């Protein structure tokens, strides 16, 4: 996996998730950060920090990114969501336009 094809997503606790750019860009917010003109730090370093999103939730978000790609390619499975995560997950999904 080439470095320029990946992006590092960092949770509130500092945990780092390295994911494919294609997957991360499922989020409209991340997509805008990585593609908008100007030299955003995020674009230069391929890193985005989310001080408001906990590690558990960010992990779930990353799982969704890959599930989304699978779904789009025709593999329509169900995406599991644990009830105790739902509310926090919604707020993150809302922020990430996902």
């Amino acid at each position: 996996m080439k470095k320029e094809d990946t992006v590092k997503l960092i949770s509130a606790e500092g945990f780092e998730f390295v994911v494919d750019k294609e997957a991360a860009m499922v989020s409209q917010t991340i997509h805008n950060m990585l593609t908008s003109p100007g030299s955003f730090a995020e674009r230069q370093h391929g890193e985005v920090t989310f001080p408001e999103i906990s590690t558990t939730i960010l992990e779930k978000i990353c799982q969704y990114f890959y599930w989304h790609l699978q779904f789009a390619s025709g593999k329509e499975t169900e995406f599991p969501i644990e009830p105790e995560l739902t509310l926090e997950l919604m707020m993150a999904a809302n922020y990430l336009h996902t």
Partner: protein
Amino acid sequence: MKIVLSELRKGECPPLLDLCIQKINEDIDKYNSFSMLPRDISQLIFNNLVYSRRLTSVSLEAFRDCALQDLYLGEYDGVDDNWMDVISSQGSSLLSVDLSGSDVTDFGLTYLKDCESIISLNLNYCDQISDRGLECISGLSNLTSLSFRRNDSVSAKGMSAFSGLVNLVKLDLERCPGIHGGLVHLRGLTKLESLNLKWCNCITDYDMKPLSELASLKSLEISSSKVTDFGVSFLRGLQKLALLNLEGCLVTAACLDSLAELPALSNLNLNRCNISDNGCKKFSRLENLKVLNLGFNVITDTCLIHLKGLTKLESLNLDSCKIGDEGLVNLAGHKRLNCLELSDTEVGSNGLQHLSGLSNLQKINLSFTMVSDGGLSKLCGLSSLKSLNLDAYQISDIGLSNLTSLTGLTDLDLFGARITDFGTNYLKKFKNLRSLEICGGALTDAGVKNIKELSSLVCLNLSQNSNLTDKTLELISGLTGLVSLNVSNSRITNAGLQHLKALKNLRSLTLESCKVTANDMKKLKSIYLPNLRRMEKRPQIVHSYNNGFVEAVTPRVLPSLLLLFGCFVNVHNGKELCKDVFATAYSRW
């Protein structure tokens, strides 16, 4: 309102937010409070629960203090005073509330006192709300829209509460029989633009006087009230009045003097009034009219002479008037006309020649006229035509053959026409047809072969063709756009239902008097057709009746329908009742 998942097309990935909302919907009992969520998200959860009918007074508790803006709970089961505490906890965030059809009482309305930001309040069909309840909302001065339909208890006294609602733009009091004398309290509502008093049969000329001060009024509906020509004279000063509905009022052509002084009047409904040729000369003064409804009046061709100058007319309804071929010559210059209703008139084939130049005509109703197959050739140049009603016994396959140039047709009603399998060959030209009715009885499966090509069809009615078999359902199984299908009184059996599996958009299926069991229809719905909202195997009245007066009659509303029948029979000798399937279906009940 946001609809989750169900709207998604195949291959389209549901957003994570929607998945979460769906998940919450499934496990709603596990959540105690959504108040930590941003308002727009809890609003989405709320809307989704209402849409899926899973919200209860218990789960409502989780929405306490969520600062929700819109609570659309109209016709929602179980809404009563117990819901009001959580509703009022939204406080000044609350902008729109719909509690139509609920059991909320006057006491429940006291909770709304503190929600002073509300701009729209809908309390239609709330039987337990009376004058005292109105008092509770009299302080909601930000209200711009208030609806109170069918309330038997509200009286003139209670209406004094309206005088404080100075920002009111829209007020709906349809079917409130006790409000006579109360309109005086509206005098100060200078922003009022729309007032609906339809079916308030207590309203008299006396009530019209206070309305003369409502200078902003654009729309006034007082149909089926006791208002006469004298009452209409009070409206003369309303410079902005554009729409006036006097349907079923005891007015005569004498009121036209007053109406001529309304410079903005563009939409006038005089359906079922006492208009006759006497005095109808004054119609020529209403030259700004765009929409005119003169249905069910005793007017003849003489009256049409005075409509000749009303060249701004876009819609004209002459249903059941005594007009004939000669009168139509006066409409030949109405180039803007796009809708013409001539049902139940004496118009015949000769009259149609006067209409052949109406190039903007999109809709024409020639049902129950004298028009014959040959006459229809006069219509073949009307290239804008989209909707054509030829529900008349004398129309046959030959008539259809004269219309094949009308390729823009989207709605074709041949309900009682004598169309045979041979005639269906001509239908193939109408590639844009969305709605088709052929119920003359002569159609067999062989004719349906031609109908299966009409891939744009959304509504299809082939009832009364008693020779249609399960083969028909097989043939139309490819019409996946169908939303409504009626094949009643045919030889359809349970075995045929399997062919409907592909019709995923189907919402209404009517198979009355067929050899189909309720159980099999239920099975079809639960396994294959989740969108199906209405399945009927018992006789069902669903027919568009004059001016959409009765659009869809279900067993639930039948009691009120019978009431209507009573009043029709009295006023109009029941003549029009016998005119279509409506009456047939009624007699079966």
